[in-house]
């Protein structure tokens, strides 16, 4: 079985690619069957990836045989030979497993979520190509293949974020994501050029082998010093770290499954993979941890920044988006303090609970007709019992509730590693991370208590399909015929009528909020089985994934990843004695206390006494506004970068329109002018023509005589 999977490992990316083409072809004949090829492909890829993972786990030496397997030579130019070759080790196998596994669950969820949408085949085609590029990214054995996947992931995210392209916000978000990523990609590209110039190869194995030679490192110390910074820029772009984090919250303009895919399985985890993979480059110069310290600082700061912003957001998905940025900050912090295993462990657990949170939010959004403002809903647990449970599990995992949430294990490990780090930045950043853990628990349960507890209160749009800009589902949505149950909120009902009169709601039918007795087939509910079954699977993962790294339970993940990532910490630790600033029991106690404090605080303000929250908010209005406006970072970018560029472009457009075009028109005018001046020679008179011919002959004779004079 393992041999089979190893031999056909190239099918892992290929299957989604084929599925992409097939789903696209469904556009013509079988619109509603477009999900079948991608899901089958994902199942196939997942089985192969899981087989590889288990096989390598059983016998780590097997990974050695999976290095640099060339399927075919892609191209070669001079000394650069690029094959379509894969290298699969523990890191890649783990990544492949959760990319395809969680991807598969998201695909299944999407079948229910995207049902009846105009772009159904297009959606699945894009999703498949997304997975294809992500697999390329983690499977490639050279920087160039990684870059191929890297750019491809950027493209796929652009297509998916802008999926609702008639909606200007979606288009703007797609452009923002793409352009912000370009900034990072630029850094990565420069890094690649430097690597090729320095090492004359782009193959991971060859590059890392050269680094073993101290003489070589000394000879190229400048390039080797700067290469990590370039790579880091790429990772920050893709993984949404400050200052390139601004695209991720806007990326939720895509359909919710896209957000889940971007935040959990693909895209943002690529940055962690990149740095984990190229760790030798970061540690190339002994004693020099400048690059890693930068990574740790940026990661720590970003996690704090995003957590504070998440405190004051009202959009459910936006809260989870900032929490992703914050959690990614943790991962970079772990990388920066040379604990890559912990970082990857957190990627792994985070993939489960973030996918769970997004898909649950998607279910809420689906039921509420596209509304996600937590101020407009309350007590939703009564109409969506399953979603409530899954969302609770996701929140527990994110907050890091001891022994239940997966985040508890991985997050505490990172904080512990930071606090006990050799690097100078470790201790302060570890302390900051503790604070962030508190904030995380607080904002997570703030959203949870606001939405799912308290008196039942639903937005007017509840029960409708999310207003698709393609507006094709007006006639055949199954939910719209719910009778108006009177509504609990006349204001909302009135709003709903207004919306209906504007033709924004499907079929012009008004649906008020379901009142509890109306929770089965109509109105807001948990949705079809294809939607809640993936949620349950993810919920199990969100609880169970953490135990893979639990020491009494065997600590599988560390044993598994150590052959690849375990060596770095030791190499650095050899220079000094082990530090034990914060012992494990103390850390355990902190890990117990902090999430619980956060949760209790959230419970007090957002369930027990919601009025108190408003009072606190009113008293801290400037802070709230500062956080609500996301530290004004977007505004600063707009004023400092976008506006000057736009102004410059404006000037350029005038130069182009009047100067350049003017010259072009002038040039084009000359032939016409010449033509007009010659037109009198063509009056159609036979005699004139004859005279012209004779004159021409005469001119020839005269001219020749002149030449020969």
């Amino acid at each position, binding site marked *: 079985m393992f041999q089979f999977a190893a031999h056909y490992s190239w099918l892992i990316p290929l299957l989604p690619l084929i599925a992409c083409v097939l789903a696209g072809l469904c556009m013509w004949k079988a619109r509603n069957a477009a999900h079948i090829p991608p899901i089958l492909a994902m199942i196939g890829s997942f089985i192969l990836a899981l087989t590889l993972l288990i096989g390598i786990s059983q016998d780590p030496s097997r990974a050695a045989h999976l290095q640099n397997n060339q399927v075919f030579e892609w191209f070669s130019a001079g000394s650069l030979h690029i094959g379509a070759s894969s290298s699969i080790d523990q890191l890649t196998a783990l990544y492949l497993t959760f990319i395809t596994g969680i991807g598969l669950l998201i695909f299944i969820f999407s079948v229910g979520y995207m049902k009846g949408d105009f772009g159904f085949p297009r959606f699945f085609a894009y999703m498949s190509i997304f997975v294809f590029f992500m697999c390329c990214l983690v499977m490639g054995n050279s920087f160039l293949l990684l870059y191929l996947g890297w750019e491809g992931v950027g493209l796929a995210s652009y297509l998916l974020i802008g999926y609702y392209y008639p909606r200007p916000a979606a288009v703007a978000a797609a452009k923002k994501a793409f352009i912000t990523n370009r900034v990072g990609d630029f850094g990565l590209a420069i890094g690649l050029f430097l690597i090729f110039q320095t090492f004359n190869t782009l193959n991971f194995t060859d590059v890392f082998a050269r680094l073993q030679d101290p003489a070589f490192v000394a000879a190229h110390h400048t390039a080797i010093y700067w290469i990590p910074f370039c790579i880091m820029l790429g990772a920050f772009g893709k993984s949404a770290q400050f200052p390139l984090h601004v695209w991720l919250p806007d990326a939720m303009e895509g359909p919710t499954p896209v957000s889940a895919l971007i935040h959990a399985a693909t895209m943002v985890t690529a940055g962690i993979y990149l740095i984990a993979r190229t760790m030798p480059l970061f540690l190339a110069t002994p004693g020099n941890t400048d690059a890693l310290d930068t990574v740790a600082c940026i990661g720590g700061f970003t996690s704090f920044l995003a957590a504070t912003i998440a405190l004051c957001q009202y959009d459910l998905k936006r809260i989870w988006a900032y929490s992703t940025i914050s959690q990614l900050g943790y991962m970079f912090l772990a990388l920066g303090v040379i604990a890559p295993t912990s970082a990857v462990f957190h990627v792994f657990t985070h993939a489960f609970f973030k996918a769970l949170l997004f898909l649950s939010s998607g279910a809420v959004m689906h039921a509420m007709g596209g509304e996600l403002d937590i101020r407009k809903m309350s007590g939703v647990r009564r109409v969506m019992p399953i979603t409530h449970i899954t969302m609770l599990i996701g929140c527990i995992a994110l907050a890091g509730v001891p022994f239940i949430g997966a985040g508890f294990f991985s997050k505490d490990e990172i904080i512990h590693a930071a606090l006990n780090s050799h690097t100078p930045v470790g201790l302060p950043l570890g302390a900051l991370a503790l604070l962030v853990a508190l904030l995380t628990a607080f904002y997570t349960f703030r959203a949870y208590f606001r939405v799912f507890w308290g008196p039942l209160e639903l937005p007017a749009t509840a029960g409708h399909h999310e207003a698709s800009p393609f507006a094709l589902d007006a006639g055949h949505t199954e939910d719209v015929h719910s009778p108006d149950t009177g509504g609990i909120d006349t204001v909302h009902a009135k709003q709903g009528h207004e919306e209906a009169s504007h033709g924004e709601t499907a079929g012009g039918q008004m649906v008020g909020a379901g009142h509890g007795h109306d929770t089965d087939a109509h109105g807001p509910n948990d949705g079809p089985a294809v939607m809640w079954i993936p949620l349950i699977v993810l919920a199990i993962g969100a609880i169970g994934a953490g135990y893979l790294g639990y020491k009494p339970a065997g600590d599988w993940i560390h044993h598994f990843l150590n052959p690849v990532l375990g060596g770095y910490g030791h190499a650095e630790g050899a220079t000094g004695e082990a530090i034990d600033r914060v012992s494990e029991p103390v850390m355990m106690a902190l890990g117990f206390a902090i999430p619980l404090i956060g949760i209790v605080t959230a419970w007090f303000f957002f369930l027990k006494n919601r009025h108190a929250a408003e009072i606190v908010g009113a008293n801290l209005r400037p802070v709230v506004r500062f956080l609500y406006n996301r530290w004004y970072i977007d505004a600063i970018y707009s004023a400092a970068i976008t506006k000057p560029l736009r102004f410059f472009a404006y000037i350029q457009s005038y130069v182009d329109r009047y100067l350049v075009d003017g010259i072009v028109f002038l040039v*084009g005018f000359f*032939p*016409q002018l*010449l*033509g*007009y001046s*010659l*037109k009198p*020679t*063509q009056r*159609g008179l*036979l005699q*004139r*023509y*004859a005279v*012209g*011919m*004779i*004159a*021409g*002959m005469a*001119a*020839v*004779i005269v*001219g*020749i005589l002149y*030449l*020969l004079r």
Partner: protein
Amino acid sequence: MELNIVHLIPEIILLVTACLVCLLGLSSSDLVRRSCQVLAAIACLLGLGVTIATHYIAVNNGTLQSTQAALVNFRYYNPQFITGLACAIGFIMVLISWDMPARSDPTSTDTRYRGEYFGMMLFSLAGVAMIGKVNDLVWLFIVLELVSIPTYIMVATGRSQIIAQEAGIKYFFLGALAAAIFLFGFSYIYGATGATRFADIREALGGSQMAALNNPLALIGILAVIVGVSFKIAAVPMHFYTPDVYQGAATPVTAYLAFAPKTAGIIAIIAMLSLFNFNYSTPEGYSVMILLSVMAGLTMTIGNVLALLQRNIKRTLAYSSIAHSGYMLVGLAAGPGLVGSTGEVGHDGVLATLFYLGSYAVMNTGAFAVLAYLQGKADAGEDLDDLAGVAREHRGPALMFALCLFSLIGMPLTVGFVGKLYIVNTALSSGRMALAIIVAVNAAIAAAYYLKIIGSMYLREPLYPFSLRRTPAIRAAAIICTVGTIALFFVPTILMLPSWGYNAHDSASAAPLIQPQNASRLGAVTTPASANLRMAIMQSAGSSAPADGLRNTQFVR
């Protein structure tokens, strides 16, 4: 070197059929009259078959060199190429003319003048087929008139509209004037050398290998012939008639005018230049080169800038025909290149011109074929507005028209690109930098009016419903030409047939003209990706030709 009667079989077929068709056209039976064009088409195909067959028989027998006629004294271009081209394009012309002569009444099935029309066309085609084989001034004159005089009749009777008659009269009078001028030139040449046979004239000008122009009388004669014959190719200063006649004639006749007299004229000019072996090094020879260069520059510029202002498509294509003559003259002004060098097509101006002639025949005939197809039976609809939005309903014809026009622009993936590439390359390799620049500028100007037609077809709304002339024969002609336009980009060697006979000056001492490995290499060039690659292959093929025994003429300018 002497022609065998065998090599005139295609012409004989065409002439006999012409007579037959003229007779059949007198028949009282409509059915018999209708068989005229079928016979004409068969004659053309037969002629083409015989041409190819004799060529291959000669190749197989190894007697090709002995059967070559001297198109150019010191270099051998296979005149059978022109015969084959005349028969092949002639066949397409017959297809385009299937409904001819056009009547203003679209429902009319009048076939009374059909015999005359196709008879005249075949006579003229016979002249074109023969033009490459003449070796005497008298013959040259007769053949030139054989090409032209039937076309006067075709212009006047091809269409029952007054502008056709006007065009016919204009064409006839101006053609007579042009004939007078080049006949005048012939008399000067005869007066200077005392001979009419080309070989004797060369002897008189310094010997067949050393011929050079240093006799003022002969110079005047050759100048007059070139200027006079420039009427046939519609070049400055004899270009004035072109738009009026092209516009006035029925579209199939216009297509024919753009091919037959032009081919004959270019070959006649090559024959004149070969009288002094393209030796541009003497002052007199140099002045001929200057004349050709100036004519080329003026012809393309005047043709293109005037075409810019036209709204009538036939008139536009008439000016474009003038411009393309200018491009062809560039190759002649460049000359065949250094004699010592190998004669690859990219550096041999005469070969480049012959190639351009063939490619222009294919793409321009294609354009006229589509135009004829798009016009109603009444021969209306030749204005730019008439073609507005044609692509909406008639995608096939519009696409074919667009492809032929792209080829006339010289876009890659069409044969027009290869032709322009060779022309510019010969201009550069012979040091005529200015001409190369003028060609490039003119190509840019030309793109404007061709694109205007394409834009009208594709970007505008139809002004009124469009009725096609649903004649399968015209459609077939358009398809053949369009496919040829694309295919010849990939397999241009077909149009390099004139170089098959290329070799040293003395056929008796020369190695076999088609060496087996040469033939296989030429045949193998079927899948090149780019023209550059192809040129490289051609060069390597040409380089295996023996370079001994060549004249040591220095082309100083």
